[in-house]
């Protein structure tokens, strides 16, 4: 039984682990695809004025409702505007609206949530009941009502969306902060006599950023979709402006000329899917349990 004298090197045929790239691809493949789509759209949005073949609002009524050709890759719409150019310019507005709403909403909501979790008592009750009040309306309907009241326009639509957007971040921020609050390092910070503002900024907030980043990414697609939805209903942008939702609306009744509505729709689809893949990947990557596997 003194088999233990066998030198370690004589271990029978150590099985090689599966190639790393294959596991990586299986785990992160969709995330990279999503990331590539998102990056591509961001580039398009930034470069739109230089890469689009026609000005987005240039009307050419003679060539209206042309199917896709070499001159007009994605065809032309009712007023003879180039769908491809409008699509590229639409990306600017959609992404801008999406990022603005989600980032501002996350900033406002998280602040409210963390303050509520830290203060507890009456402040917690007041802030969270306000959150509940907003959440109990269907978001699109409420945003519609607010946008209609404020008047049509990109800025007003974004404002209306912000009003319905922050509460979910407040909820999440509060839940995450409550978890952090009971951690021993937050107690340790209290024992060290640090000020609440410092504890919130240095200890609680940084540790809530991971899950928040996931929700922000997943939510970007959602916000873009909602913005397009509001535009589709005629509340988003002032008419000549190129925007995906309003482009779909313009093509809504054109059954023969499918390209007018289909391409902006496809653009919305890819952006939303891209952000969702990204968010899923980010969640997997941030999950410490899944990481080592």
């Amino acid at each position, binding site marked *: 039984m*003194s088999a*233990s004298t066998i030198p370690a090197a004589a*271990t029978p045929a150590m099985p090689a*682990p599966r190639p*790393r790239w294959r596991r990586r691809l299986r785990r992160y493949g969709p995330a990279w695809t999503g990331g590539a789509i998102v990056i591509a759209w961001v580039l398009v949005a930034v470069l739109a004025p230089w890469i689009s073949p026609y000005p987005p609002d240039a009307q050419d009524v003679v060539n209206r409702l042309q199917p896709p050709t070499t001159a007009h890759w994605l065809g032309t719409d009712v007023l003879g505007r180039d769908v491809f150019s409008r699509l590229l310019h639409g990306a600017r507005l959609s992404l801008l609206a999406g990022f603005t709403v989600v980032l501002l909403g996350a900033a406002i909501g998280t602040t409210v949530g963390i303050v509520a979790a830290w203060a507890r008592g009456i402040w917690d009750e007041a802030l969270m009941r306000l959150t509940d009040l907003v959440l109990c309306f269907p978001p699109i309907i409420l945003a519609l009502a607010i946008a209609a009241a404020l008047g049509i326009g990109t800025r007003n639509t974004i404002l209306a969306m912000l009003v319905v957007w922050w509460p979910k971040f407040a909820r999440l921020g509060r839940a995450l902060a409550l978890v952090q609050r009971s951690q*021993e390092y937050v107690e340790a910070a209290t024992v060290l006599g*640090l000020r609440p503002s410092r504890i919130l900024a240095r200890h609680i907030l940084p540790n809530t950023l991971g899950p928040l980043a996931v929700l922000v990414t997943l939510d970007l697609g959602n916000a873009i979709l909602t913005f397009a939805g509001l535009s589709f209903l005629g509340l988003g942008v002032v008419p000549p402006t190129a925007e995906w939702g309003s482009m779909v609306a313009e093509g809504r009744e054109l059954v023969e000329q499918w390209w007018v509505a289909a391409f902006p729709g496809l653009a919305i689809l890819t952006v939303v899917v891209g952000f969702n893949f990204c968010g899923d990947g980010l969640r997997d990557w941030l999950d410490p349990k899944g990481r080592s596997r």
Partner: protein
Amino acid sequence: MDGSLPARTGATAADTPVLEVEDLRTVFLTDAGAVRAVDGVSFTVGPGETLGIVGESGSGKSVTALSLIRLLEEPARIVGGAIRFQGRDVLAMRGAELRDWRGDRAAMVFQDPMTGLNPVIRILRQVTEHMISHGRQTPAKARVRAVELLRRMGVAAPERAAASFPHQFSGGMRQRVMLAIGVANDPVLLIADEPTTALDVTIQAQILDLLRNLNAEFGTAIILISHDLGVIGTVCRRVAVMYAGEVVEEAETEAVLTDPRHPYAWALVNAVPRLDSPPGAGLTSIEGAPPDALNPPAGCRFAPRCPFKIAKCETDHPPLMEVAPGRRARCWVTADGRPLPPPPVAAEAAARTPEPGAPPLLEATGLAKHFPGARNSFFGPRAVVHAVNGVDLRLVRGESVGVVGESGCGKSTLARLVTRLHEPTAGTVRFEGRDITRASAAEMRPLRPRLQMVFQDPYASLNPRMRVRDILAEPLLAHGRAATRAEADSRVLDLMATVGLKPEWAARFPHEFSGGQRQRVSIARALALDPALVVADEPVSALDVNVQAQVLNLMLDLRQRLSLSYLFIAHDLAVVRAFCDRVAVMYLGRIVEEGPAIALFAWPLHPYTVALTSAVPEPGRERVILGGEPPSTLRLPTGCVFRARCPVAQPACEAPPPLAEVETGRRVACHFPGSFAPPGGKLGG
């Protein structure tokens, strides 16, 4: 079937070993390469034998257990060796055969009784389930037997218990249920992986007693895995000490405890404080950490940390050699049969007698904390959790006071009350003569530097997103102790040197450290502001014994050098005895006994202290197994809180006893102090 467990009469001959393990090798396939978790482990367990496997975390003891019962999943893989169970090749078993064998002939009990049971299935079905699935009992008979098994395992009111769900039970009760499940099919071998680690010391004594009875009455062979040699010593005749995936010593438990022949076993034995060690004896700790499992050193794996190493140790890997009849060790130093020298006895620390009449540093009077609990019904009043119920405590400058008790006795709440993390419900707290009972956060802030705290969990008490230098510089900058970042940085390096951390580690994040190193960071953070009093809430309970000895020695040393006072909260009596001048024993939110550490553990006067000290798993200790469990803190018992479990309770105990001084410096809350002594007479000495 009358429900009793019949003695084993098997098809197997009495002399066939139950389990033979030969050169077992298990690896974890990771991105960085194959980690050899178990590297050539061999042992034999005969029928009715008891074998303990001991080692620190990461030594491969649990992986060995999981390998034995083939419960490993990818990326772990058994790559070599043989496991024979009653002559059958376990490694060759497949699918149905394996399932049939597992839980029938060989059973396993896991560490965590909280997650080991399915929360949505009633106890009865969980106990009968595999009796039926292995075809050993009809459902009707299985039910009768399940209730009988629960009774045998000491579950109170087994009929009612069988119909309950797991969440209705405490950890100790669940571990009994797990044991009942384990032995339901009369296994020949029971593997218990740290079965008592999550339990309190009195409950642990009950479970260990059960294991001993199983072995004695039914001849079940037991493999007990634990990090605690004391636990193994109370159950197992033989022990295998594991280090870095290898068995480094295998011998009778008694022999290892008194005369270890491998330096690692020697370190394990001497790192643990014992209740009967001479007063003032220091703890022996070895420096360093276990080797990198990816590239273990070429020579002896323990050589880099070994205090006895010779030239040969660095180059030649020692085999497991017979060093004395019946005992084997993997060591060149003891290969010729020499014993290892006893650890150096530290010179007794200069006993500091606090000046009489000195004003107390910390003084708590009638301290109480009640937490709101859940509502019983929608309109009903909230239940009240009585965490702390009137504690008087005095701590003089330079003194170390220990607070011991089982989980739920309110000791951690007490720590958070005196540091004012919680606001007391009643009573007063005075720190350096100032009443801080109702001080606001802003009023506390200037006092905080003098009153610091070290927390239990080294993983949760450091902000994972801050580097060590930022963690340590933060209090300095926040309190204006350092004007500039550069000034703070130089102080941080001083602090790191004080607690024995290398300066180049300042830029690391907490997750890059081991548990013991993190606890050093925690201590450094507490010291940053030059405190007068450090409240330490179980600072070593999450650490391996050797690391525990390192951290305790560091804290003792700091106490001398920086003239600190400690309020030391712990559940481990021997640790408290080694560390503290005075000790207070808590039960159900009250102090039941208080006195000088050495005297209190040598001659406990309160029956609870007697039971607590006797439950400590040290071999040769006369045990008083305390029945039952502490009552709920939702409804406090009237009279003496210990009455329900007290072996000498009398009608007079219906009146609550005051915490009265019975000898100079000793206070006991008992009507009959000293009336209850364990059968073996005086404990310790």
